[in-house]
């Protein structure tokens, strides 16, 4: 595919290098037996993985990140899926406006939303950081929940549900035996996407952090500021490994490029 389009091919190689090479260097740096981020790495050891696993701030931050990502994803689905149903099946007036409202957090820069929540809820009303983080992450994930599950609904035939109702099924029964199976891949995709988005989030988690409520990415940024050793490379490599696992799960279930690229082939 490359032999007859030399210009496009060389631009493509450059593009892939910019996307991938820095990640490979992080992995290489993580296994060094030296004490600095020197290239080439000095020898092989797992000492920085041990150091990272024993570093209390990282352990606490990982726990906070996981709690926040699971709770906010669960909440976003719990309030987002019913809203999606109402948008696509409710025949409500102003459907476009309501859907736009649910997608609106995508338009405003996340740093601005973070600043807003910090100023208005933490500074003014003295609410604890974790509930505000949870509220912010949930609002941030709502657009994904509504759009991804909405795509699953829009692609299904509403007459199936009408048929079930016509045959005497109650609304509850119709939902659980007809609508929910249609929604399931969408809910699963939205869940994976939501978890990843919350776990990796920087802007909201940065502005809404407290000393004892700090997510892993923020704790990493904080650490880089103070010391410049390969421990961050080790943590990064572990995150990379976790992300690869999620990518494989996505590929085996709904299709990796469909969930994360929005590409239907």
């Amino acid at each position, binding site marked *: 595919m490359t032999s007859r389009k030399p210009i496009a091919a060389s631009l493509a190689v450059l593009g892939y290098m910019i996307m991938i090479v820095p990640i490979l260097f992080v992995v290489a740096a993580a296994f060094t037996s030296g004490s600095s981020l020197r290239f080439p790495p000095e020898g092989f050891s797992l000492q920085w993985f041990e150091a990272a696993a024993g570093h209390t701030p990282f352990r606490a931050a990982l726990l906070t990140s996981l709690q926040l990502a699971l709770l906010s994803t669960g909440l976003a689905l719990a309030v987002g899926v019913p809203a999606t149903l109402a948008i696509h099946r*409710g025949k409500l007036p102003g459907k476009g406006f309501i859907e736009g409202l649910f997608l609106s957090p995508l338009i405003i820069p996340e740093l601005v939303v973070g600043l807003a929540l910090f100023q208005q809820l933490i500074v003014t009303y003295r609410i604890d950081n974790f509930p505000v983080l949870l509220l912010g992450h949930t609002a941030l994930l709502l657009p994904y929940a*509504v759009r991804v599950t909405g795509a699953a609904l829009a692609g299904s035939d509403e007459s199936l549900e009408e048929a079930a109702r016509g045959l005497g099924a109650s609304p509850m029964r119709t939902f659980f035996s007809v609508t929910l199976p249609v929604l399931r891949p969408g809910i699963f995709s939205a869940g994976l996407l939501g978890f990843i988005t919350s776990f990796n989030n920087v802007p909201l988690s940065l502005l809404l952090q407290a000393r004892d409520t700090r997510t892993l990415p923020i704790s990493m940024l904080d650490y880089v500021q103070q010391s410049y050793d390969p421990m961050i490379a080790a943590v990064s490599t572990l995150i990379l490994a976790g992300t690869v696992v999620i990518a494989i799960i996505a590929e085996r279930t709904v299709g990796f490029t469909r969930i994360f690229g929005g590409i239907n082939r």
Partner: protein
Amino acid sequence: MTRRSTFVLLLVPGLLFLLLGFILPALGVLFAAPGATTEDIFSRLVQMFTDPYDLRIIGRTVGLGLVVTALCLVLGFPIAYLLARSESRWAGVLLALAIFPLLLSNVVRTFGWLVVLGSNGAIGQLSMALGLTDSPPQLLYTSFAIIMGLTQLFLPLAIVACYSAISQVEAGLDDAARGLGAGRTRTFWDVVVPLSLPGVVVAATLVFAGSVTAYTTPYLLGGSRQRMLATELYSYSSVTIDWAAASATAIVMTVLVVLVSGLAARLGRKGATT
């Protein structure tokens, strides 16, 4: 209970989260920061467009955003084009490899450049080993470092947007143009590019909006020398605690993003009708 009121009830929890977690606080930033009145915010906003320091930061943010947008299109479109038109079984793997970085933490991806560009990093050590320089060149904390970091972050978005557009242009049209005697280059510029333009506009919008609001990249790779709107916003809100300045910066950032998205949406509609 009627069918319609059931559906309205289903909307309520989601709307409540939106209202409390997004809409009301966002309005608050504009008009009522704690300890800063609306007048304070707006006079600070006016000052941002006259003060040379603030102007330099706005200029750097917009300038780097434009450079990164151009770079992502120049690199991303060919990748999308090759992937969309390839019949090789490797195309699927390469597409997945281009999308995978979207899942990976920005902090992890950006940290890679510290390893590559740092004074003990790969490029510095290589250029010394090859005798190109006596001391490692200063690559970190420059606009070059920020451009590389942002391009790495947003190139996948550009590829995905261009890929979706190009795969909707029938490959048969390429063949038809070639069959009618157009060369490879002419086919590319006269058929493929114009027909996938809406995707290019989407890609440009996403990359620009991402670049001018990114925090991690200027923080890690720009340091205190290459400040951008995002790093300023954080330092106003959490270091110097200057609410009027934080709100003013937030307004500039929001207007920049909304303006560009609105412009792109108009362009996209125009492109669709002609």
